[in-house]
């Protein structure tokens, strides 16, 4: 055997196999590649993301949970709680826009980088800005809504007032009046009387947020993030928007009260301790129409928020 035969044969075989395997690997991509919406774009801080450029990264990072078709039916979905988002519905929890509207590109971009606490969605921080913007475009391409509708206008978050004892007490009153306790429990542990009955927009069981467990909220860590959560709602979950039933000042009071339920030693918690603040008494709750959890069924996406239906119980 010629001494160079083996390397040459190896290289030749490797090249042939490479071409064959490349074809096989490519063939494993599913027909989502044929989606005409792959021309979808996203725009963040002067960077334009292209859905077509994110195919590989979506397959690398996202398919396992969200599925090739973006329907939330990846191979891991059956094991995950809460379930992965179904992108085809165009409904997203974390938005700066009113309930029932599409999120902005910035909202989706922030969610990818921040992750969703208490879920399997990690922080994809190490991805480059370009990669994340491309992925935003790719996420959008799954839903026809993004092709025909504009995102909602981000809500206005007024300046945060100074936290005071009166505001915390007022926030507790809001917590009782809105019947937040029905889902989140009187102490905010996510164990209210309705907790076991809640379902998401695909009729899957979903648990309310437990304020005592974690320092971060589903859609952020700041007071502004918390303010936005109950003023925009978490679409696709029973947590509604209270934008039409709570004034901005009341919303800030509620923010301050909810901070007292969290595990970290915050200014709000110190004040609550000085006040000797006790959990609410549900029996003393003010009379009001019974709230109705929303989004228990898949509903068509609407451009404008629905008129508020009383005070639905919040969930995560």
């Amino acid at each position, binding site marked *: 055997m010629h001494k160079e035969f*083996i*390397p040459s044969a*190896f*290289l030749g*075989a*490797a090249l042939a*196999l*490479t071409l064959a*395997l*490349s074809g*096989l*690997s*490519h063939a*494993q*991509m599913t027909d989502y590649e044929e989606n005409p919406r792959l021309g979808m774009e996203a725009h963040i801080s002067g960077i334009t993301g292209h859905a077509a*450029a994110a195919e*590989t990264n979506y*397959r*690398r*990072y996202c*398919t*396992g*949970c969200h599925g090739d078709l973006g329907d939330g039916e990846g*191979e*891991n979905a059956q*094991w*995950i709680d809460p379930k992965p988002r179904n992108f085809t519905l165009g409904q997203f929890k974390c938005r700066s826009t009113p309930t029932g509207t599409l999120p902005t590109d910035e909202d989706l971009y922030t969610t990818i980088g921040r*992750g*969703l*606490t*208490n*879920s*399997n*969605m*990690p*922080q*994809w*921080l*190490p*991805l*480059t*800005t*370009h*990669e994340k913007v491309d992925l935003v475009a790719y996420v959008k391409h799954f839903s026809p809504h993004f092709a025909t509708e504009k995102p909602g206008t981000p809500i206005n978050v007024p300046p945060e007032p100074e936290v005071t004892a009166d505001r915390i007490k007022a926030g507790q009153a809001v917590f009782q009046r809105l019947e937040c306790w029905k889902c989140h429990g009187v102490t905010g542990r996510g164990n209210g009387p309705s907790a076991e009955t809640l379902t998401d927009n695909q009729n899957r069981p979903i648990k309310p947020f437990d304020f005592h*467990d*974690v320092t*971060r909220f589903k859609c952020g860590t700041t007071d502004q993030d918390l303010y936005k959560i109950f003023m925009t709602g978490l679409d696709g979950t029973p947590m509604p928007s209270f934008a039409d039933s709570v004034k901005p000042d009341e919303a800030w009071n509620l923010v301050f009260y909810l901070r007292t339920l969290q595990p970290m030693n915050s200014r709000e918690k110190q004040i609550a301790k000085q006040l000797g603040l006790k959990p609410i008494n549900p029996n003393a709750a003010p009379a009001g129409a019974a709230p109705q959890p929303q989004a228990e069924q898949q509903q068509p996406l609407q451009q404008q928020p629905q008129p508020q239906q009383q005070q639905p119980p919040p969930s995560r």
Partner: protein
Amino acid sequence: MVSLRRNLLRSAIFLLALSVPPAHAIPAFARKYGLRCSACHVAWPVLNDFGWRFKDNGYQLMNDRDAPIWQHPSYWPVTFRITPNWHLEKTNKVSVDVGGGVNNGQVGTTQHGFDLSGLDILTGGTLEKNISFLLTPSSDNTGAFHFESAWVRLDNLFHSPWLNFRFGKFELDNFISEKRTLTLSAVGGIYQLYHFVPPNDVNTFGQIGDNQLGLEWQGHSFNDRTRLSAALFSSNDGNVNLQNANAYSGFLHISEAFDLGGLGQQRVGAYYFIGQAPTYSLTSAGVPIPGSSLGNKSFNREGFWGDFFIYKFEVPVYFQHGSDNPHFAITPPGATSPPTPANVPLPPGARAPTWNGVFIEPRFVVNPQLVLFHRTEIVRMSQQALHGFFPSNLGDLNVYTLGYRWYPIMTSRVGFAFHNEYSRIMQRSAAPDSTDLTSSSIFVGFDFAF
């Protein structure tokens, strides 16, 4: 000189035989978090930036579900990895006995056949939120086990990603990790630079590629773009029982990542490895007394590296300058091998053996299920231990590796790859007849972890 070359050849063959290092790719993590291998690996076992952040956070995604209490009680964080394979090993010149057993001939040899790699049993994860661990019983292909890794790490102390302390036996903080290299063959399975020892040198304690026993501080920015680490460890190359008592080494490493437009994340770094090792021991009846090692002499390796992305094309580059104290490489009068004890004067012309090396390892990730790779590695002696005694190029290395890995399945449960690789090493003046010694490997195997 002939004896030296025979030793070099034996060492080379020995190193080649043991060269495939235990590699880390841990489907147990994928199962825990429901993520595919590709989420953390460019192509497993090579980590991507997300995987590095996961590792640097103490095997945590920082999603408040990292503590084991969140796992189903039946979850067991264990992964096995082994690679059944066929491989061919060819060497151009090997000393043979001729004419009544006198070892004065040389032939080329070719061996091939079906074989097994060693087995890695990787168990790692979190003991509690911000307390991570890794235990890796690892065997060679005969089933002889040792502990490749065994450490506990306190992560994010005081809620700071800059305060992480690891204690035990661990891999040095090499961003271009030999434990996660794509290559598997006998020749190409290791980075030669991570294990390089100059001709006649017996200092085996400066091997960056070997896991070490010690303590490490590691810190990183929240997004892991900036990474710093410092390790202090015993100068025993990871071996137990205080073989080199009272001698320590240190390893410093810093790196910074940055985006380059849409090309991807680029990273550059630098490292410094400095240490001491003994040159002799007290003896009793001619037998070294354990723990009585004396006469520490120093060694160092330093360099810089980069990991560059151009879309699907990744190009890691690594440079090293190394130097050992001449006591490690010079045979004292009346002895048959080094080192020269520190209390024995060196002969005239003694100098620190010094070398420079570089490797470049471009990879083309066709898609998450197919990666093509190549490596060129070059080591050049810039100064031999004894001026004029050794050929100036003795110990120089050229290594070329080429191959691909195809992952027919890609799930969050197991890793499975078809691996095909060719590698060739040329060692200058190392053959029995003082010409170049060349060895090559062809490796075909199924690499799987579950």
